[in-house]
């Protein structure tokens, strides 16, 4: 059975994309309004810098406009757009412009004090967040991408699969590996028993 609101959205997006392709500025603005936050979240998750992420949003929609000719309505627009954004993030990181310039915390994971055993809130949560941030960066590329998309951008497994061009099973497997590796990496700093 087809999901009616999803089908309606797909048709709307397809109509807007067609209009934007023929130069309709308002349609293009509407597309931007609909997806700008998701693209920003993806950019910020990868680049960890507000300005870089904002640049990425602009660059992504610029690239989108140039590629609108090749958009087919049967494609999932969001997955296609996020694929463009992800490729731009990778280019950005390859150029080394962002990754080393800005970090969420200035302290090395090894120098951080292990969080105490209070319930997960306040100070402890901040520590866990910082340690997690550090450890996520040390994951292999595909595991990092899947974990980031699943938890920082809150995409569903099916959406991730479509964006990355892999199966849902592979997404689940990569996510499992990412969580297992993160637990291993975080264990010494979190005071978890082996």
């Amino acid at each position, binding site marked *: 059975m087809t999901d009616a609101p999803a089908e309606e959205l797909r048709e709307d997006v397809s109509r807007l994309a067609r209009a934007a392709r023929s*130069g309709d500025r308002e349609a293009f603005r509407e597309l*931007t*309004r609909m997806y700008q936050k998701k693209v920003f979240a993806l950019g910020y998750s990868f680049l960890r810098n*507000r300005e870089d992420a904002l640049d990425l949003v*602009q660059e992504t929609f610029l690239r989108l406009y140039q590629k609108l000719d090749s958009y087919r309505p049967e494609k999932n627009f969001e997955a296609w757009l996020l694929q463009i954004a992800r490729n731009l993030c990778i280019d950005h990181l390859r150029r080394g412009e962002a990754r*080393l310039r800005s970090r969420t915390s200035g302290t090395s994971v090894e120098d951080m004090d292990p969080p105490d055993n209070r319930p997960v809130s306040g100070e402890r949560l901040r520590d866990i*967040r910082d340690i*997690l941030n550090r450890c996520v960066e040390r994951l292999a590329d595909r595991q990092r991408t899947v974990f980031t998309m699943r938890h*920082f951008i809150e995409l569903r497994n099916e959406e991730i699969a479509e964006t990355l061009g892999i199966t849902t099973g592979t997404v689940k497997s990569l996510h499992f590996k990412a969580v297992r590796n993160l637990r291993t990496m975080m264990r010494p700093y979190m005071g978890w028993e082996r």
Partner: protein
Amino acid sequence: MSECDRFELEAAAFAGGTLDADGEARMKTHARSCPDCRRRLSEVEELLAGAAAVRGDIDSMMDSIDWETLPETIAARVFAGPSRQPFFERLRDAMSGWGTPRWRPVLAAALAGLVIGAGGMFFALRPRAVPSGDRAGYFASSEVIDRMELQMARQETLDYLDRSQTLLLEFVQNGSAGPIPLSRADAVEKARALVAKKRYLNVQLESVPLAKARGICDQIELLFIELARSGEELTPAEAAEIRDYIERKQLLLKIKLLRSELTGNEV
């Protein structure tokens, strides 16, 4: 698959609340009876709480952005370029007027030239019959490809270790000679290059059985990430801290041993 293995596999989905009702009930029943899995679950819950906190940071960051004006800013940038029409419309504009009787002889001549030229090219360049034995196909088994990948990963790791060793030695030797300030820009540049190389190496090490090499390279990477992060002149205290890390982790010794193992094909 044991119940504990299944639990570990589904712990993240369970903690994230994305498991179906049956799966959730099964997980709860097992967690009640298995202390190890309870501990696993609490670790995963903490990890996911950290992930939710990161997501919260992103949300707060987004609150500081003016989303209303951004689409217009982007649209202005996009539409400021040369006007863009769909391909077929551009083609139609370019072709308009060519169908008039004035142009018909020219079009007919161009078409005839195209057909004659294509025919000539076909006869001149058509493939000659080649005896089947003359061209052997190239075939490599998956085993050979695996070995090639392993060999390439080994070479890349050796290269990474060599370059890391050089940089680490700079710190250690500077320490023994006294508090000589290191060239920060030089060290940072080298560290950045090595971090970038490690990122590439991670992909290679992911698919080959070189777990030990990966572990040691990860420790080295951590140091380089920290080194590359700050942008100021390296103070003697910071240099001493780095030397201390190198000595505490016995990085140079590990590199030496790993290099000899990799060279001797033992890893």
